[in-house]
């Protein structure tokens, strides 16, 4: 059995996965996405040496491209390209959640800034404006009034790439200074953390503090259904607590970071991830 881990950079998470592979004496290679050259019409046979490829690319666009190519060549990848594509794009994620009847914040989409302002006023301020792609809370803006809306939209339209001209507008959820990050592997919510911050953005990448969040049957059921809504796999699901509506699914991450979640939850997340991949590889080998 041999595994490839696709990376852009070796973070703490990749080192933990490497340690877990070494503990199990499983052969693996680290493949740097920057080094890759694909001849699309001639599958590179070296990929066939791997029973599976685990995508840990820091670059979402590179990772997704490689997943698409390898799947096209019949290589087993985690997570699948279709799952990753849905999770990498907030619009596609929202549509998948709505299709599955998963509760999620009310979201609008507009292309023109004046139309976007009309949408914000329909939702009523404050609202949250996000790019449809991106991570770590980058370029996410809470907009409290029309003045701020006009300023942020003008900046996006003047300075941003075309992707910044797609205005994904969400109602603001008055969460209790925290959100929930739940980790789903296969059919199970293996653990969850609260991410607490005085800032309204509660990403740990932005300084939020992680603490254990009990996985209640309600949270487990919601997160498993959410994972199934995008095709399942190894996923981190961001959940907001709304005083009236309860738990709302906000975003889903297909290349999850977990360094801050192992200690508070006591769950060896990289080991559970590997167990899932290895078990799926064994099942595949039996077929």
């Amino acid at each position, binding site marked *: 059995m041999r595994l490839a881990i696709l990376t852009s950079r070796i973070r703490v998470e990749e080192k933990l996965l490497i340690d877990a592979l070494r503990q199990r004496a499983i052969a693996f290679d*680290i493949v740097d996405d920057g080094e890759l050259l694909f001849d699309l019409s001639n599958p590179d046979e070296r990929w066939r040496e791997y029973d599976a490829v685990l995508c840990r690319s820091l*670059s979402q*666009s590179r990772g997704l491209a490689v997943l698409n190519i390898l799947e096209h060549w019949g290589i087993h990848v985690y997570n699948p390209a279709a799952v990753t594509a849905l999770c990498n794009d907030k619009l596609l994620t929202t549509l998948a959640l709505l299709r599955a009847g998963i509760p999620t914040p009310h979201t609008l989409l507009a292309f023109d800034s004046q139309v976007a302002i009309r949408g914000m006023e329909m939702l009523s301020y404050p609202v949250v404006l996000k790019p449809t792609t991106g*991570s*770590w809370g980058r370029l996410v803006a809470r907009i409290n009034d029309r003045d701020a809306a006009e300023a942020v939209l003008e900046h996006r339209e003047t300075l941003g790439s075309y992707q910044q001209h797609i205005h994904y507008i969400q109602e603001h959820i008055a969460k209790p200074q925290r959100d929930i990050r739940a980790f789903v592997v296969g059919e199970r919510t293996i653990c969850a953390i609260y991410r607490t911050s005085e800032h309204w953005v509660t990403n740990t990448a932005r300084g939020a503090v992680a603490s254990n969040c009990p996985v209640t049957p309600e949270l487990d059921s919601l997160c498993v259904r959410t994972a199934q809504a995008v095709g399942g796999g190894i996923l981190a699901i961001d959940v907001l607590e709304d005083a009236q509506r309860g738990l709302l699914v906000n975003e889903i991450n297909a290349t999850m970071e977990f360094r801050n979640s192992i200690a508070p939850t006591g769950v060896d997340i990289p080991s559970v991830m590997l167990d899932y991949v290895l078990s799926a590889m064994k099942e595949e080998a039996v077929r």
Partner: protein
Amino acid sequence: MTHCPECEAEITVRDLLVGEITYCPDCNAELEVLRLEPPSVALAPQIEEDWGE
């Protein structure tokens, strides 16, 4: 041992992996390990728009 491309301080890559980030002890520049043998580092790239989870 190699040198920081920013300030030429001595950098050791012992216990690091290719692709890992380290910091220059003198100027605190963020450095990416390019090779272990012979050791080589470069200034780490800035965060790209599509980086994330």
